């Protein structure tokens, strides 16, 4: 980790870097996840510090791999962005029942204001719905400190813990004083004997086992609330008795700046809420204001508990991030229209990006383009304006099929599903199966944009690149073989830049057929091209050494 350090051993770290360092100092055995802004740098940071970190094909798989490890008493950390938790929610909602024997922390990064996301959903609702305790650090120091408390909580109650961070916590840098330097380990580091002990009733969640597990979970919740009231990681700071602010996360710092005289209650663990502690704080101030980003979740919970608290005006402040200006406005009940900041220049596809060429061709052919998420979503913006829909990862294939099923034939023939390579492996494979299983009368055309990387989130490896998070070579999935195995009769791989005409011709002919066609538009991301080209050369050596069977795990072959 390259970080500036001052003479007192403090480091200037982003929240993500602080979590990576904390994971090391907590003795995390395995960290896994799927990239997603603003969470992506945590795993790279952990691996750079010598931790075992890996990218999973998607968040659900990551959460499941971690669960298996935690069943054997390992400490595990899973990272993802807020929408990733939608994908991992299936395992979340039942692993709170089963619990686990090791420590399990799921880091989820919310993006209020949608700096780089398709929605601004609020992960706190998952904590409540799945009954998972939740921690919310407010800056890098707390992101470092609370991770240990989160693991201890997880281990004490045998429960997965949600660690909610937000864009400004993830990507802001502030001072961190770690318990020891990054290259050392604390003396009291967690060090259990990793082993599997059979307990079928605890881990096989059939109704007969899940019914008592649900009761156990509710009992744990009551115990955790009692603990949180007396020993939870909160800070009550009494200043003026006129105004008190209850908050968590980055809003605490905005509040301190906007109203230095106000008393504050900063919650470090927000589910289950320490209601007794909160009640005592509310009773000690004349006016009590709840400050939170996204949904009015905290305010609603406090009001349901009968507390008289003021909340932000959700007609205005439910949208976007909190800021010092906004806190000032909320405190003076100023509901006037906020000034609109001047619009900056929107991002665009890099010059020479292979996606540009692919979408130009589809536009020339007047296609209806069912798109997906990645750099290539920028093709939806002018001047290209060549994507007609984008909702969630993997949806491009399903939505395209739906259109094909109902549109009149001439229109149906224009529909193409376009999906990035990482997105395809994340959640497009099931779409391919759907196409083969329920093919529309006009067939369908699916284009995988294989640029050899997860470009959008900072060029992470994935199962199609044949490299792991630490750059080691590993198995590489074949899109062609997947397509054929699913039942696609036509599978083509074409370079959309160098073989632009061939690509255009192939799409045009496929649209005219009543068959399923998978086209792999293969051309490297311009920003990753040197890494990809160098990797190809090294890979040949690796493969010729006869170790391409997927067994090699350590070290790079050069």
């Amino acid at each position, binding site marked *: 980790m390259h970080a500036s*350090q001052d*003479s007192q051993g403090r480091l200037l770290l982003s929240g993500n870097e602080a979590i990576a360092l904390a994971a090391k100092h907590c003795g995390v055995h395995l960290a896994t996840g799927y990239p997603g802004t603003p969470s992506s740098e945590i795993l790279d940071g952990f691996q750079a510090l010598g931790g075992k970190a890996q990218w999973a094909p998607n968040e659900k798989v990551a959460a499941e791999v971690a669960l298996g490890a935690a069943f054997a008493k390992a400490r595990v950390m899973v990272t993802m962005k807020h929408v990733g938790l939608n994908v991992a929610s299936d395992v979340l909602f039942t692993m709170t029942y089963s619990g686990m024997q090791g420590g399990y922390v799921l880091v989820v990064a919310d993006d209020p204001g949608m700096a780089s996301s398709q929605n601004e959903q609020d992960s706190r609702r998952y904590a409540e719905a799945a009954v998972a305790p939740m921690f919310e650090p407010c800056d890098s120091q707390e992101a470092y400190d609370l991770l240990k408390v989160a693991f201890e909580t997880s281990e004490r109650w045998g429960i997965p813990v949600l660690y909610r961070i937000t864009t400004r916590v993830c990507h802001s840098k*502030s*001072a961190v004083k770690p318990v020891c330097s990054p290259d050392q380990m604390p003396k009291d580091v967690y060090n259990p004997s990793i082993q599997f002990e059979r307990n079928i009733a605890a881990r096989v969640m059939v109704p007969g086992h899940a019914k008592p597990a649900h009761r156990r979970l509710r009992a744990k919740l009551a115990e955790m609330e009692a603990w949180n009231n007396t020993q939870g990681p909160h800070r009550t700071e009494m200043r003026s008795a006129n105004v008190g602010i209850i908050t968590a996360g980055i809003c605490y710092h905005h509040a*301190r700046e906007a109203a230095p005289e106000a008393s504050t209650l900063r919650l470090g663990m927000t589910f289950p809420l320490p209601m007794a502690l909160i009640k005592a704080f509310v009773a000690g101030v004349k006016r009590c204001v709840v400050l939170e980003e996204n949904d009015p979740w905290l305010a609603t919970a406090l009001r349901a508990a009968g507390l008289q608290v003021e909340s932000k005006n959700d007609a205005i402040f439910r949208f976007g991030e909190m800021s010092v200006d906004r806190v000032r406005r909320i405190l003076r009940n100023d509901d006037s229209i906020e000034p609109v900041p001047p619009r900056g220049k*929107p991002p665009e596809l890099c010059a020479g990006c292979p996606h540009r060429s692919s979408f130009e061709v589809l536009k020339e052919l007047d296609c209806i383009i069912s798109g997906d998420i990645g750099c290539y979503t920028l093709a939806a913006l002018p001047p290209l304006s060549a994507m007609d829909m984008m909702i969630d990862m993997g949806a491009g294939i399903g939505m395209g099929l739906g259109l094909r099923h109902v549109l009149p034939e001439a229109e149906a023939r224009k529909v193409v599903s376009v999906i990035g390579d990482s997105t395809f492996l994340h959640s497009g494979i099931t779409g391919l199966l759907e196409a083969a299983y329920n093919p529309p009368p006009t067939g369908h055309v699916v284009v995988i944009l294989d640029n050899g990387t997860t470009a959008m989130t900072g060029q992470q490896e994935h199962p199609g690149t044949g490299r792991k998070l630490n750059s080691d070579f590993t198995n590489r999935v074949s899109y062609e073989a997947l397509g054929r195995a699913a039942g696609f009769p036509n599978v083509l791989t074409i370079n959309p830049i160098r073989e632009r005409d061939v690509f255009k011709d192939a799409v045009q002919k496929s649209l005219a057929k009543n068959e399923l066609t998978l086209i792999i538009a293969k051309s490297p991301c311009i920003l990753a091209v040197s890494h990809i080209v160098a990797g190809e050369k090294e890979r040949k050596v690796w493969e010729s050494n006869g170790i391409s069977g997927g067994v090699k795990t350590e070290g790079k072959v050069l």
Partner: protein
Amino acid sequence: MKLSIHSGNIRFAGLGGTGVIKASDIFADVVFRLGYDVKKAEVHGMSQRGGSLSSDVRWGVSVDSPMISEGECDLLVVMEATQVVVTQGCLKSDGILMQPSDIDESKLPSAKALNVAMLGRMSTLLAFPLEAWQAALRTNFPEKLWAANDKAFALGRGEP
């Protein structure tokens, strides 16, 4: 005009790929090593694909919010001329604007070094010891770029 070195708010702005984040990292490094409390905020993601980008650095004895409020910026350092209009609203009434035209770009060792030249210019407004700037530049760049950066930094300082 000189700026206080004991606390301040500086916003770096430009387009993705113009060295905005790097410049703010280096500057944050300078103040942090001198023992100040520092906070730095920026937004990653889509904004990197050539879109507008800004990064705030705040320092002092103690800093709360990592973001600079509108109208509270002491110094705005813009790396790309078109971005002046969109960002200058953040400046205090007596805040200072620094832009590419302040540097003789034809004399830069490479166009990429503009951010370092801007840091050089900043060093004439903020009286931190020169060694602190130098040290931060050294740790944030590989050795092969040191000579070019020294040139760019000197150019920004107006030294021959």
